[in-house]
């Protein structure tokens, strides 16, 4: 009898169920944590990349405008008005005692595609257009298309790229935007003021 009732070391069904449940919980939690870490990584990476891109784009715009003459700027919107496009001419030096100006240049926003472009002689045969970025928000951060100033910057319904003029100073506001997995939008906003040196 004692040989026939030989005991084998093993888990009971209850033990196995509890163990499996615990393992399942741990794995689920682990998966959630890993996924959260991946999302955080992605969000932070996108945010940093956008910040980097916005800073570079802002510098590009500022350094392009800084050499212009305030008289050459067009349009000349003063707050609460703004423009998503600015035409300007920069000084190239002096010849025969008179300042020499560049061909007309423009920096603007293509609203439907969110592109910021720089152009020279736009509309002429020797037109040049370069796209500087294509991740510009439809509206500036925290702004809604409702006719009021939602983000408290004295402008109403401003686009993702907005120029405001105050005598020789041009204030540039820029919001870049990208979607991460899951559809969440990440926005980065920059603002700077450039004084036209000519």
């Amino acid at each position: 009898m004692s040989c026939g009732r030989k005991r084998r070391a093993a888990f009971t069904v209850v033990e196995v169920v509890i163990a499996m449940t615990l393992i399942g919980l741990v794995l689920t939690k682990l998966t959630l944590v890993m996924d959260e870490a991946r999302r955080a990584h992605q969000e932070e990476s996108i945010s940093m990349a956008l910040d980097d891109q916005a800073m570079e784009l802002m510098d590009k715009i500022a350094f392009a405008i800084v050499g212009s003459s305030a008289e050459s700027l067009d349009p000349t919107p003063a707050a609460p008005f703004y423009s998503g496009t600015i035409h300007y001419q920069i000084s190239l030096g002096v010849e025969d005692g008179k300042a020499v100006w560049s061909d007309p240049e423009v920096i603007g926003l293509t609203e439907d595609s969110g592109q910021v472009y720089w152009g020279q002689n736009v509309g002429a045969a020797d037109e040049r257009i370069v796209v500087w970025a294509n991740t510009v928000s439809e509206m500036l951060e925290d702004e809604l298309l409702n006719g009021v100033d939602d983000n408290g910057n004295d402008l109403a319904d401003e686009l993702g790229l907005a120029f405001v003029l105050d005598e020789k100073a041009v204030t540039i506001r820029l919001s870049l935007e990208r979607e991460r997995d899951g559809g969440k939008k990440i926005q980065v906003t920059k603002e700077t003021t450039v004084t036209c040196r000519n």
Partner: protein
Amino acid sequence: MQLGKHAGSVRTGSRRGSALVLSLVAVATVVVLSASFSQFASAVANRQTQAVHRKRAFYLAEAGLSEAFAGFSCGKSGSVGSLTEPARLGDGLFWVEAVELDEDVVRLESTGMIGTGSAKLSLVVRRGEESVAALGVFSTGQVTLGPGSLVDAYDSTKGDYTTQADKSGAALGSNAGISVTGSLAEPSVVKGDVTPGTNQTVSTSGSVTISGSTSPALSDTVLPAVDVPVLKLGSPQVHGSPYPLVIPAGGAGYQALTVQAGAQVIIQGPAQVVLGSLTLEATAELSFDTTKGPVELYVTDALDLATGSLLSSSSTSPEDVLIQVPGVTAQAIELRASGPFHGVIYAPETPVVVGGEFELFGALVAQKLTFEGASSLHFDKHLAELAAELALPVVLSWRLVEIENTSGDLSVDPFDLLGVVKNLLPPPSGAHADQTLSVDYYDFSNAYHRYTGLESQFDWNVVKSVITATRDGEEVLFPTSTTSKLGTKKSPGVAPIVDGPMI
């Protein structure tokens, strides 16, 4: 049993191993994510640091331009430091090269470097213009004031002349002698300094009052030539119609213009008008309408304003009307018209005779000046302020030449890159190019000194006040001075102590 137990413990060990593998996978995933994020963050930080270096280099280059421009404004060359010995500012450096492009036009090119950033900016400036209006009433030849003459001053920005109590500050000067005559019935009065030429004197007879100094000038004043605009001159005009002849705004010229008795000519500003000769007969009138801009009138051959004629302007700001006679005329310019006239009259090579009824608010500069009778000249002190502004350089062009990073390695140092020792570099104020300085000044014991030599060997700390100074022959302006240059510089009346090199 032992074996069975042993076998059981082996199986238990296997389960522990699988948990380890799971843990390792989790840890490895986190490590990979962290590492990639860290690398990405590092790359972004690197790029942003480089962008910051570029901006700081831009501001350093702007600081260089400001230093050069400030120096240029007070007679320095505009060169500050060089590639081999730049100026040190904070953790960065800059140098500015000045290149003469044209007469009085200079390009200042400033390079700033800090960290990996490098920026080059260019500024083209034109030297300031010399204005004679600050001289007041001046002539290179003899000045003669007849009985009843009045020379005083006012400030056109402070309201009407009659409402101003302080009429002092007039400037009457000459490179030659000055003679003032008065009588008991018609005393002559000068409310300010009378400055004859070097080694010349002021002679007075009769009832004459001079409120200021009569000591001579330190040096002769050279009057700049007049640049006449090139305009096509129309045929001579004689205007005698009862309706006014209007010369509209813009550029116009006639070989001669005679305005007959009772007729009127109106010149509308902004305008430049060139006339071969201008004659106003008795009761004729020449009016300047400056409501829309100033008028510059050039008369090349003869200017005769007969007694009883009228010269007038719509504005009470003398700077709005400038009458210039560039060369020598066959006869002296005769200003016998009735006033009051607000304007500036400049005839550096022609004698001017001022009639007894003429009253001028502004300034008058001529080759020789004779006041026939009880004429009045009220010098506008505001003209001296305008002259000081005109003397400052004008910016013609500003340009961003280039902005870049010299290296991707953030540890790069511009001092190492240029092979210079940071602590041995001069500060911006000490990096200006050396020049020949000529300065007359008073020291702190009020002794009069003169120094001529390299500026690097001159100690400015010994100077209490400057009488006059030039750098490489260019007059040194002191833009921070609270008083405008007015009239001619007076001689201290004693021989100067001649200084040698001090440093």
